[in-house]
């Protein structure tokens, strides 16, 4: 069986319909305990005090904001190369989730920055590239909304997605590239000495898993809605043709 079989909307709808209840269940089982653990049961950090509780929402949302754009890049490339409608519809479906994650990361980062850095905002490489990524998300959604022909919209938004990927990567690696600015390095690392202590790390991992699963559940629902819309538009056009 080939992976490309699921590019067939009928097969995608059948498989996603079976998988979706499990994904929703797993989302609830990871996100709710992860958030409760992070908010209520983690100790104060020596240097950040209780503000460390903000990482349980800030880190997963920032990770998702970047990774959702990467997912959109992959699905857009699939559209450009193989013209599979499911893939470009999945990219479109992911955009609203991505922009929400970006807004959460920007707001929680600003709120955390005020007591820690003494300012809500600085033109730091990571923060600035993240703001540009947010604007790219808005541009991507606006482009879909502005163009009537879905194939043309898919082509143009896919190109925009490729261009915006530069900023998604910059958001992730800005700290490493420039080694300057207010934002610290990654909170999670394979290097045991670099990443945060286990007492914060484990609930953070659970929250990250919860955010990933929430994204998968939402993107499946939204892609299914997008595919239904395609079918609905076809039926409406057929009805209008009969009336004529």
């Amino acid at each position, binding site marked *: 069986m080939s992976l490309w079989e699921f590019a067939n909307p009928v097969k995608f709808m059948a498989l996603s319909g079976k998988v979706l209840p499990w994904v929703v269940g797993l989302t609830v089982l990871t996100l709710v305990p992860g958030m409760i653990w992070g908010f209520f049961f983690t100790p104060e950090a020596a240097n950040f005090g*209780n503000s460390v*509780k903000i990482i349980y929402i800030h880190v997963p949302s920032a990770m998702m904001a970047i990774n959702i754009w990467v997912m959109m890049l992959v699905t857009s490339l699939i559209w450009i190369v193989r013209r599979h409608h499911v893939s470009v519809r999945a990219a479109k479906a992911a955009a609203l*989730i991505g922009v*929400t994650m970006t807004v*959460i990361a920007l707001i*929680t980062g600003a709120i955390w920055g005020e007591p820690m850095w003494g300012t809500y905002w600085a033109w730091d490489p990571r923060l600035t590239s993240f703001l540009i990524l947010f604007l790219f998300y808005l541009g991507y959604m606006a482009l879909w909304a502005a163009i009537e022909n879905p194939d043309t919209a898919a082509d143009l938004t896919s190109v925009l997605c490729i261009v915006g990927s530069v900023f998604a990567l910059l958001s992730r690696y800005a700290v490493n590239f420039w080694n300057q600015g207010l934002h610290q390095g990654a909170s999670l690392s394979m290097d045991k000495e670099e990443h945060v202590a286990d007492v914060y790390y484990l609930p953070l991992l659970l929250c990250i898993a919860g955010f990933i699963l929430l994204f998968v559940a939402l993107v499946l629902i*939204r892609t299914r809605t997008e595919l239904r819309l395609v079918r*609905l538009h076809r039926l409406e056009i057929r*009805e209008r043709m009969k009336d004529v």
Partner: protein
Amino acid sequence: MFDLGKYADAILSSWGITLALLIALVLVTWRRSVQVKKALHAAEQRASKNV
């Protein structure tokens, strides 16, 4: 309510905004899904009657 210390405002506002945005995203997604499903069902029924 347990004591969040001097960062209480920052923590509560961050969590409040995040939860509000996530709940809004879920509701918008769910509502749109239900609306489109209903509209498609109605359109399919009309199409099958016309055949």
